[in-house]
């Protein structure tokens, strides 16, 4: 019997293919199981292919992007997949007439206001960007206004066609300043991205076409109960299920798609002989015939489980490490900003000292003190250096050094490190591995 799990996986893929219509997403690869080599390039290239790199019309923009892609190409790639991706990046750059201008319009109209922008992420990063630089915000707005005025009249048709809820877009007047690129209409890009919410229920502003929601086991149990009450998966109707479940925010679309998945999962095993043959061959395929005959199915399974468990474990460790690293990074950033505030308040503090302090930390260009050390160790060492820094600089020694030493102290408590920076931290890192 074909692993029942396979079928849901591939039906999931079908749904993906239907929805991400124009944009082929190799991010949703066959069977949902991933060869890693196919994944990393697609992160960069796949999207590039379909959309965003602008055609060379505006002098300034392509310069930026082509520069960056050239630079990317010249950098030694971190691994093979990245070199692939940079190659295709350059390749696709000049080739595509894309809807970037429309996208940008969309994007810029979203940005100046934090209204229910469909994409939660855009909204929040808008917030981030806005807080970073207010100047840019107003510039964008002006630019966006300009863009609206010069936009091709066909856009009004296109905009009407979309599901985008963006009432701010007026019917644009034609005028010929910016070159009229007829934008290709990529439906999936204009349809609001954030059709999900962080909890189980979708945002109400999302259009009814494909509200994305996140199912939980509890919700599924409720679903099952409703289905059973209604006489089984064949007889139950989405409407009936929806009513029985009585869950706020759940729409019939959710129930429909879930029911479909459920039906396929259940009835795959029970379909005709054709399927059972398929099942057998795929099992063999998976285990590979020689494997089976040479070491037996049980052993093959064991080995497989072993490897899988190992991957799981490593992933867990890696993830935790990543979380901690980001946490520390964020913490440092906070401390920076606090310190900067303190120094600014003191008024007229020469920024050179604080620049020295600030420069190394966000991690962008750091002097090579890290070679041969583990990361957390390096992190700690860095703190102790910067701890000494402002003290030496002699600016507002009391405040700044106490500020820094508090920071250091708090960091130390956080990572339970004693005087000599990295030892216990690195010890811990090693045992984790």
């Amino acid at each position, binding site marked *: 019997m074909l692993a029942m799990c396979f079928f849901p996986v591939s039906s999931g893929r079908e749904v993906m293919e239907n929805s991400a219509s124009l944009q082929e997403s190799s991010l949703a690869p066959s069977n949902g199981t991933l060869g890693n080599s196919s994944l990393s390039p697609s992160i960069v290239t796949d999207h590039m292919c379909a959309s965003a790199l602008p055609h060379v019309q505006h002098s300034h923009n392509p310069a930026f992007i082509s520069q960056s892609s050239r630079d990317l190409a010249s950098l030694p790639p971190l691994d093979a997949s990245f070199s692939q991706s940079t190659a295709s990046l350059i390749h696709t750059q000049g080739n595509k007439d894309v809807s970037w201008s429309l996208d940008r319009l969309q994007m810029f109209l979203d940005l100046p206001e934090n209204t229910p922008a469909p994409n939660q992420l855009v909204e929040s990063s808008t917030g981030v960007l806005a807080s970073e630089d207010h100047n840019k915000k107003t510039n964008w707005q002006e630019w966006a206004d300009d863009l609206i005025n010069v936009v091709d009249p066909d856009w009004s048709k296109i905009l009407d066609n979309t599901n985008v809820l963006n009432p701010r877009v007026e019917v644009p007047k034609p005028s010929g300043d910016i070159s009229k690129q007829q934008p290709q209409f990529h439906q999936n890009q204009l349809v609001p991205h954030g059709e*999900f919410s962080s909890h189980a229920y979708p945002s109400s502003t999302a259009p009814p076409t494909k509200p994305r929601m996140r199912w939980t086991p509890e919700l*599924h149990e409720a679903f099952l109960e409703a289905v059973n009450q209604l006489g089984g998966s064949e007889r139950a109707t989405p409407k009936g299920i929806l009513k029985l479940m009585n869950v706020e925010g759940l729409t019939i679309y959710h129930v429909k798609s879930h029911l479909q998945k459920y039906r396929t999962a259940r009835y795959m095993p029970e379909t005709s002989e054709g399927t059972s043959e398929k099942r057998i061959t795929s099992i063999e395929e998976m285990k590979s015939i020689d494997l089976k005959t040479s070491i037996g199915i049980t052993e093959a399974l064991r080995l497989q489980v072993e490897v899988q468990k190992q991957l799981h474990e490593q992933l867990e460790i890696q993830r935790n490490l990543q979380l901690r690293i980001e946490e520390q990074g964020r913490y440092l950033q906070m401390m920076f900003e606090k310190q900067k505030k303190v120094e600014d308040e003191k008024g007229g503090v020469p920024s050179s000292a604080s620049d020295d302090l600030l420069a190394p930390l966000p991690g962008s260009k750091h002097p090579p003190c890290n070679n041969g050390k583990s990361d957390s160790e390096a992190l700690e060492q860095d703190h102790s250096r910067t701890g000494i820094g402002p003290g030496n600089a002699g600016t507002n020694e009391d405040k700044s050094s106490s500020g820094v030493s508090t920071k250091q102290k708090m960091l130390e408590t956080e990572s339970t490190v004693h005087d000599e920076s990295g030892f216990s931290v690195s010890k811990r890192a090693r045992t984790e591995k």
Partner: protein
Amino acid sequence: MAAEPTKYGKAKAEFVYMLNNEINKFNVFFMEQEEDFIICHKELQQRIKTVMDKWSSNGSRTEYTDEMAEIRNDIVDFHGEMVLLENYSNINFTGLAKILKKYDKRTGGLLRLPFIQKVLKQPFFTIDLVSKLVKECGNIIDEVLFPIEEDKEETKEQKGAIMVATEPVKGIFRNTVVALLTMEEIRRVSSTKDHFSLPPLNLPHSHLIHSFQLNSPIPIL
């Protein structure tokens, strides 16, 4: 950065836009898979229960073993798929982090830190549920599959050695091995190491894993 704020602002916004698109794709895929897994998990539980009930009430031994054999296969694959989804999540996160780091480096910007904080909260990176399912599944496997004790390091090596000599491995198993190898690869010491880099990876049974023959994922017809 001060030279052309508008240009820079536009390019940055565009970049963010592209990233958001990618993240959206991750989220969509991830949540679809997650939903499938929830359903599948429940079904497997149901199947096991059915088989157990049937056997305890009156079933034939052969039927039981047959059906259990099927279930075993399915569970192991299910486990594998979930782990691969975890891997998907992690790889994409790592990729985003690297992209952001590179962006900051190229443009002197400070996009990375705040943006990555947002990413941390995205559905595709909040894998608690999948992780839990994996563990549960692992436990079931240990009970259902391997009541017989046999685990020795040497036997594992032997099995691996046999595998080396045979046909290249396929399917989920293959992908899992590839994932481990890739992780190892990504975490080799790099020239751009900084605070945010992961330390190198030391895989147990590393040589065993390296010894598998792996097909190219692209079928050559």
